[in-house]
């Protein structure tokens, strides 16, 4: 009984780390650019595909893929910001949502056309194969690594944005871009880099996820709804909120799976509805 409970909770923690990583990217982009980046799922998928393509066609190992795939997707993201998203600045965020949703459909369609749908296996790197029997559950080493890595990246991002000078610029840019520009900061470039960074974070999550799930064109759309719910619960744009809620939602799902498994896929949305009733800006969000 307790074994099963701890097993499910542990799994929840693993999922939660993924949610946190993905919702962090969304929160950064929304917080700084006011863009509801619906393309996040597609960028996650492209990250996984970039890793898979690198390995299959060029022999790029996993370690390098962790660096190169986010870089590639980040560049694509920056191009998208420069050419398309920038034109929507100052408009209702709804336009950004529609644009990025459209881009998602195109990206998924292209990958689907080229690679079919059942996807490809991305092998777990040799040094992370196998697992440990913890008594209450069998912990695959790779999953443990994924949790550690995701949390480390999350904390680093939080630190940069909340505690460094660069982060201060970024936060200032969201409050008053004109003023910041007057201080000689290249605000448009900063926005481009920020969007690129958000896209790269999604791609990074994709690379981490590749060995766990199949690399498929639709892998993004299956996770993005939950991640959006996480961001809404945590408060749109709140960095800390995204991380804490991501982990919390993962754990909550784990608990639900233990008590009543069929409810586990909807529990997130129930919580979202409840939170919105009580705190429309989310748990950690501020009213705008």
């Amino acid at each position, binding site marked *: 009984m307790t*074994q*099963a409970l701890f*097993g*499910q909770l542990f*799994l929840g923690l*693993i*999922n939660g780390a993924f949610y946190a990583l993905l919702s962090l990217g969304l929160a950064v982009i929304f917080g700084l650019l006011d863009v509801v980046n619906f393309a996040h799922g597609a960028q996650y998928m492209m990250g996984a595909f970039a890793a898979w393509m690198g390995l299959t066609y060029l022999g790029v190992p996993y370690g390098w893929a962790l660096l190169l795939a986010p870089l590639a997707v980040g560049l694509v993201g920056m191009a998208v910001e420069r050419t398309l998203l920038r034109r929507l600045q100052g408009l209702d965020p709804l336009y950004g949502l529609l644009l990025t949703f459209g881009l998602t459909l195109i990206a998924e369609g292209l990958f*689907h056309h080229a690679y*079919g*749908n*059942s*996807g*490809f*296996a991305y*092998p*777990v790197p040799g040094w992370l194969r196998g*697992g440990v*029997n913890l008594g209450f*559950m*069998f912990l*695959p080493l*790779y*999953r443990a690594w994924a949790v550690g890595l995701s949390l480390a990246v999350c904390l680093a991002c939080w630190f940069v944005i909340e505690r460094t000078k660069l982060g201060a610029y970024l936060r200032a840019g969201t409050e008053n871009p004109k003023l910041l520009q007057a201080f000689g900061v290249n605000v448009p470039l900063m926005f481009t880099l920020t969007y690129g960074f958000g896209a790269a974070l999604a791609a990074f999550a994709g690379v981490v996820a590749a060995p*766990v*799930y*199949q690399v*498929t064109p639709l*892998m993004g759309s*299956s*996770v993005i709804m939950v991640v959006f719910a996480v961001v809404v619960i945590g408060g749109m744009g709140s960095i800390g909120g995204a991380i804490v809620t991501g982990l919390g939602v993962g754990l909550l799902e*784990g608990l639900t*799976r233990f008590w009543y*498994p*069929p409810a*586990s*896929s909807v529990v997130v949305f129930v919580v979202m509805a409840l939170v919105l009733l009580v705190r429309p800006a989310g748990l950690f969000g501020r009213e705008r």
Partner: protein
Amino acid sequence: MHRFALALVAAGLAAGAAPAPAAEKLSDGKVKLGVLTDMTGYYADLAGPGSVVAARMAVEDFGGKVLGKPVELVSADHQLKADVASNIARKWIDEGQVDAIVDLVSSSTAGAVMPVAAEKKRITLLSGPGTTAFTGEKCTRYNVHYTYNNWALANGTGREVVKQGGDSWFFLTADYIFGKSLEEDTTKVVKAAGGKVLGAARYPSPGTTDFSSYLLQAQGSGAKIVGLANAGADTVNSIRQAEEFGVTPKQSLAGLLVFITDVHSLGLEAAKGMYLTTAFYWDLNDETRKWSRRFFQKHGKMPTMVQAGVYSSVMHYLKAVQAAGTDDADAVMAKMRETPVNDFFAKNARIGPDGLLRHDMYLARVKAPKDSKQPWDYYQIVKTIPAAEAFPSVEAQACPLAKR
């Protein structure tokens, strides 16, 4: 000279006139087939574009014409949605003069199209859906269930696995009509063979990609066998994660519906040792190899049983039209039932009054990487399950047509 020319004209007229009566029997002067399949979703790889390729091959191999009139082929994506499928079928029949609808992968879409087609006297040739009821209580006069059904899968894999000592089961089930029916059919077989079922974890499908928590439930159950009552990408993911979480090799997996494209994307390392039941394997004999290599050249992948079934069913249909001399659905169905299927896909197989094609199935075991000698060399055929054992008897089916 004059008389000679006259004779020639007369002969020409006679020759021209001869096929005319037959041609008139083709409604609207042609035979039109519609491949209605999943072009983009979870089953696109195992059916989808490959099914269209297979149907086109059949039409070409037949010569592109039947009774001197052209055979046309159209295809569409039903997006795995029942309403989309029945709308397309209705449009095809009412406006497009489609005579037969082929493939119909996924039970929800097949279940929606069958009554529409039957009402309008058009033939459905199912290759892909598994629900056994299509030739049972939901059978129609104009339907042929061609490639396999859940009963055959449950019996093939279920019975054999129990026989090999796997007598306690836990199911991982895709929570919709197909998965539940497969779980139900297999449960019956396992119990009948003396095994017991300890429980099931049903997950929402489509949409689940992380099976770890369901696998933990399976692990906690202590069952010897984890039966996968799912298909396509779900099967692939659950097998990979079962390996990751150390479910295998302590417990064994039994894939109730596994396609060769699934094994291809899993890789042999993750899939090795698994039992599965299939209607077709490309590397079975010279005939299957010959056809499959041609298919491979056009499609870039080896055919699944669904795609091979599409080819065979289209061929059988066209032959029946030829033999009946008409595309009238009643006459064609009668010919299709009367004539055994004899090709690379099935030998001496017959379509019963319930619409089920009964043919041999194969129990296969996935090879270990070291035993695979060439690309797509994945299965070792453990045994051939004769048609009479592989499928339910006509009497055992609840189809009212068969009772008369």
